[in-house]
């Protein structure tokens, strides 16, 4: 059975890109997407996905706040941060401290996303 993935990113284009990569892998299926942290938390609660792909820089509520909230709701949540800011040591380490399972920097290679998700 394919694992369910929730994508949280304010960019429609970034979501389309991730959906294509994730769905084409054959191992995962994107079951929902949210355009900010608040929507991401709500969708996490209703969809209960196996994995969350979370951007960091988003309006209304950023990815780090959403990550903390989801981890406080479910300590076993599997969240991968996928962001252009993931290359900054402070941001990346902060995300890992809050419970992210991995951090991927944009731009990324499609294989990297699939390999990281498979490794969870």
């Amino acid at each position, binding site marked *: 059975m394919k694992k369910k993935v929730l994508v949280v990113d*304010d*960019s*429609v*284009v*970034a979501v*389309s*890109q991730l959906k*294509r*990569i994730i769905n084409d892998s054959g191992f995962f299926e994107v079951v929902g997407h949210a355009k900010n942290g608040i929507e991401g938390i709500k969708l996490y609660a209703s969809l209960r996905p196996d994995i969350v792909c979370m951007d960091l*820089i*988003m*309006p209304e509520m950023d990815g780090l706040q959403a990550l903390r909230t989801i981890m406080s709701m479910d300590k076993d949540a599997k969240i991968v941060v996928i*962001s*252009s*800011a*993931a*290359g*900054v*040591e*402070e941001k*990346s*380490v902060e995300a*890992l*401290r809050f419970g*992210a*399972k*991995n*951090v*991927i*920097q*944009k*731009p*990324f*290679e*499609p294989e*990297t996303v699939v*390999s*990281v998700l498979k*490794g969870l």
Partner: protein
Amino acid sequence: MGVRFFGQFLVERNVIKPNELIEAVECQRLRNLKFGQYALSRGYLTEADVQRIQAKQRHLDMLFGEIAVELNVLTQAEVEEILTIQENDHIFIGEALVEKGFLTEDVLERELTLFMAEQSKYVTGEIVIPEGVKNPEVVKDFMDLTRKMLLRIADINVKFGDVCISNKEPQRNFLLVKVPISGGLKYEYATSLSRDISLLVTSKIIGEEIDGGSRELLLDGVKEFCNITCGNITTKMAQRGKVVNISPPQEVVYSQGGYQLINGRSAIYCPFISPKGNILLILIEAED
């Protein structure tokens, strides 16, 4: 991949686990003392001296040691002594990972070679910046990374045009998107793109050809491009010791009176030359 630090490269490649990176970073934090901490431990400065220097540092673009010398609380010889000790004691993330037993020397060497090869694509090349531009090295980084991201993300190979300073608003183009940058450096990063370039950028990010494409979709694609580029710029700035933050990209709308981006301020115009369409990078130093 883009500009990034070695620890994230290792986690992303599953060479180390997230908790191992966190432990190694903590090890670095405890071992890599700041200049002021060394000066305190050697009795060269008092706590009050450190606070006075730090307070000045918030307003001046000067190093801790330079301010200490200017305030006559340290001699140049003491500054150099501390810098040498600091350099000798410094532990890199790879060394911390080996020390903690999370990496072997062989794996560290292999991964460092791969990392250096990847990051060599993002080394800033030769760019001519006109006289009078503040932070020319920073401006070069902005220009160079924008060019590299155009190539990396959208497969658009561009050349640099003539950089100039102007307080005029840019000419009308298909899209103009800006990203506010705050923190250690305050800029507005704006890109003005033709429709063809916007279409190309969006198609490449999505990973498939877009036929036509609504303006809304292309705007989203250009915003994502700016977001990725500025995210990589923040990493480059962090490597230069400047902590900066970026806000989500915003469209600058053209109205009857033209754009209201520059608003009489001094802006650096960096045109990129491409046969595929026109691309203009505009950098505005924001006020406090």
